[in-house]
């Protein structure tokens, strides 16, 4: 169990997709096909649909604030976002989209969660991520 400093959204379970890399909906994603599309990204070519993304830091510009809402409306979404470092845009986007996100850990969360593990993200009173299997 790893506790985060902040969280929003609802409790979700899913398969973790983990990388020591950043996240920006505009810069990194093909939001039509549901895959990471920036060639330099460590998850390039991988599908993010229904996955719990465990990444290092929020990157890029302000577009994600709208894009999480747009992706949610089309159902082309990850299940949750777990970040070492968040920026305001991710928070604003998650707030508009009612999307699950937790952030801020005492360790590098991308090193603590095994890629492919089944995890539970609880953004409640004490936001946390736990490995189920």
């Amino acid at each position, binding site marked *: 169990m790893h506790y985060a400093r*902040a*969280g*929003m959204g609802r409790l979700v379970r899913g398969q973790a997709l983990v990388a020591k890399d*950043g996240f*920006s909906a*505009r*810069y*990194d*994603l*093909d939001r*039509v096909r549901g895959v990471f*599309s*920036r*060639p*330099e*990204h460590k998850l390039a070519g991988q599908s993010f649909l229904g996955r719990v993304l465990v990444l290092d*830091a*929020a*990157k*890029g*510009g*302000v*577009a*994600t*604030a*709208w*894009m999480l*809402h*747009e992706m*949610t*409306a*089309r159902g082309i979404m990850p299940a949750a976002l777990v970040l070492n*470092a*968040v*920026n*305001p*845009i991710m*928070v*604003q*986007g998650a*707030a*508009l989209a009612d999307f699950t996100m937790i952030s801020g850990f005492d360790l590098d969360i991308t090193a603590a969660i095994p890629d492919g593990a089944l995890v539970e993200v609880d953004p409640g009173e004490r936001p946390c991520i736990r490995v189920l299997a």
Partner: protein
Amino acid sequence: MNLTDEEQAMRAGAFGPLRQWAIEHQIKVGSYLGAADFVPVSQAHIMADTESLGEAGVAWLEGWTRLPPDQRRVRIPTISDPRGTDFAAAARLKQQPWMLEREQRAIAVFEALGVLMTDTCINYQTIMPPVRGEHVAYGDTGVVIYSNSVCGARSNFEGGPSALGAGLTGRTPRYGFHLDAHRRATLLVRVGFSPRELDEWGALGGIVGRLAGDYWQVPAVVGVDRVPTSDEMKHFGAALASYGSVALFHMVGITPEAQRLEDVASPTMHTRDVGEADIRAFQQSYTRDIGAVDVVVFSAPQLSLIEMRQLADLLDGRHATIPLLAVTSPQVKPDADRLGLTARIEAAGGTVLAGMCFYQSYAREVREANGWQRLATNSAKLTNILGGYGYRPVLMSMAVCVETACAGGRIGP
């Protein structure tokens, strides 16, 4: 968060459902980010291109326009970031009718909400630059970092929903760069080479952005051998914000809050060196294995009048034999027309676009429709963004970009 009587009334719906949504959204964001209360802001700047909004976002916004004017109109001067098209040139970009129709709907919404449709990401050069200490709620990372760093204003990255919220409530949660504590340097960058070309300033910004790593880092740069121009600061800041998600930098002896390093230094600040070799390596990382390009784009940020003049000078007596796009603001465009710059650029085969930004204009669909893949630009910010849209971007100076456009896209001698 501590709320005033007015804020509590807003939250209870006394000012209508839109302002109620706005302050609820702001409380959610502020609570996540540790804001103790709200701070009044004097301006807001909304990024809301329709590729980002999608059908869902436009429809959500349209729902609010049925409210009476006193419940739906913004309370403070609120301006817009670039749109997703220049309607006059949409056919040349091969944009589809559905894109233009969605843009028209979004524009109608923002006009109904009382937003001034300035359609610019260089408002600090053309509309009304903020003043040192002024609290604002700006969207567009390039606008925020320039306003915070060069002007000494105070803003966080305010995405479209939050900037709209700030316009409607006249305030924003007090966290991040509204607070003195977050404005101190966390990283000292010693520069051993002062860039000359705009793409070099962008490259330096990209390198420092990668070193910084996340939004809460504040680089202080020392060693720059002269005061950069506004356009140089613009490209440096835009790239720094793009590569690092950074919202504030100091340039010691130059930017207003860092007349001396001691003014901004923090005890935990670590030091990194950046030299000319780093800048060359950054540029070459994009040019590697690309011998030719399909299109040349000057955008992100929109071009100032001075950049438009530089481009016109470079194109005089030449002819671009591949598409060359120059994107500027609706404020600069009439002056460029009046001064003959637009005519000179277009006589040489270029296309001048206004009020849009290339990457905010359905860049993937435009690439597919035009058969473009390899793209040359002098904007490091643009090179960082376009890879995800399927382009292979190349970072070169404006002069080399023009040479390339006039050589059928072939790079180099």
